[in-house]
């Protein structure tokens, strides 16, 4: 199974090779989607873990033991396409490249979306909603 988490590293943990050990010690694959971690500062990482449920549970135990906070991301962005006028304002803030203009039409590739939520405020018509579950 595949699950996405936002990890929060305290100032004490940013110096440790936690993600390295997470992969080494568990039978899972880890895809770092976005990360902002600097030594001596509070850091965050958005990761996707893929593996058996039992292994994933052990991985979460490991994170807990190493004082890394984690929050599961089971939310996604929904676009009300019927109301969209294809102005493109949302593409300005979409770093993941999920929202792009193709032939002057907005294209939303949901699988690229990292749920950063910047598009929610960028749409002048409020057409992006955060859905859970």
């Amino acid at each position, binding site marked *: 199974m595949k699950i996405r988490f936002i990890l929060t590293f305290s100032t004490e943990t940013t110096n440790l090779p936690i993600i390295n050990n997470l992969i080494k010690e568990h039978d899972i694959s880890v895809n770092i989607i976005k990360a902002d971690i600097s030594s001596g500062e509070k850091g965050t990482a958005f990761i996707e873990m893929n593996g058996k449920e039992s292994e994933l549970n052990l991985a979460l135990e490991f994170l807990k033991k190493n004082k890394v906070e984690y929050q599961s991301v089971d939310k996604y962005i929904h676009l009300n396409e019927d109301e969209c006028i294809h102005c493109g304002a949302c593409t300005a803030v979409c770093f993941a490249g999920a929202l792009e203009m193709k032939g002057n039409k907005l294209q939303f590739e949901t699988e690229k979306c990292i749920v950063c939520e*910047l598009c929610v*405020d960028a749409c002048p018509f*409020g057409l992006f909603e955060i859905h859970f579950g």
Partner: protein
Amino acid sequence: MKKTVEEINEKIRNGSAVILTAEEVSQMSEKNSPEEIFKKVDVVTTGTFGAMCSSGAFVNFGHADPPIRMEKVKLNNVPVSAGLAAVDVFIGASEEAENNYKYGGAHVIESLIKGEDVKLEASAKGTDCYPRKEIRTTINKNNVNEMYLYNPRNAYQNYPSAVNTSDKLIYTYMGNLLPQMGNVNYSTSGELSPLLNDPELRTIGIGTKVFLCGAQGFVSWHGTQFDTSVEKNSKGIPIKNSRTLALIGDMKKMDPKFIKAAYFHKYGVSIFIGVGIPIPILDVDIAKFVSIKNRDIETIVADYGTDGHPEIARTNYQELQSGSIMLNNKKIRTAPLSSISKARIIAEKLKEQIRDGSFVITKPVQNLPNNTSLNNLEIRGDE
């Protein structure tokens, strides 16, 4: 070599007129000279669908019994300007509702066009001829006398693109601008844009009939902040915001597909207006102007992260529409704010309407000014 508006209208009537959209004629100009375009094409249709804050609407509600001389008026909780006769108001598009800053005059205007009921609340001191002091009711497009859009400034001729060199994300009417030049936003439909196809307004003036939000509207005046003093590029196109139009049109005949209320985060309410203007190809000069392509239309890149929004670079609409531009050796993503796909639909629709005879080309009653510049607001003390 000249054609008149009357000759063109006659060709439209007898079915021999050639009508193209501004994009089609730009493509044609890759292989045809302006002389050839003048001979082959009679009318070029343009379109734009972008945010135009300086918009609004006049409404006359009709009189109640006993009547009221309305002084303070709200529509769906949005204060409207009632400093007019008893039951006339002006809805300013960017006026915000009490208790809901994301809803405003623009939304009221859109609701009225859709035919929805809108809550009216008004109060007055009461006079001998207008004794009523309060009224609460609902209005809609069928029970008001008149409702017409009157937009003091629409269809800006070009507009600077926006970037932000500061370290903070900023929220503007040009959209959300990411720090350290994270994006460049622009808001013009380029080669489809009405006033970029007739940069000196040789065919557009007072009385010109236009497509306005699905209805037929008119140019009523030059728009506010009308500026003919802006620097032009080698093609004769102003390189930043210059001319504008004041437009008027019957809201009862408008189509909600071509008008849309908007809220820009941490900026406020605005409204997207669909405008299309036909340009009769009266001579070779006009044929040359409508031949312009996105690469010929330049605009400045203004830094919204610095006071005064100084120009930091120049670009053109071909680059902007490509998805990224180079600034200081950095590739920066670009994003449009006005809908090119809607602009294209408007130009196509206008083409059909002209062809089927429902939209007749007009000659301006009077030209717009050709020698204007803008004043700044000075802060003057009263010492």
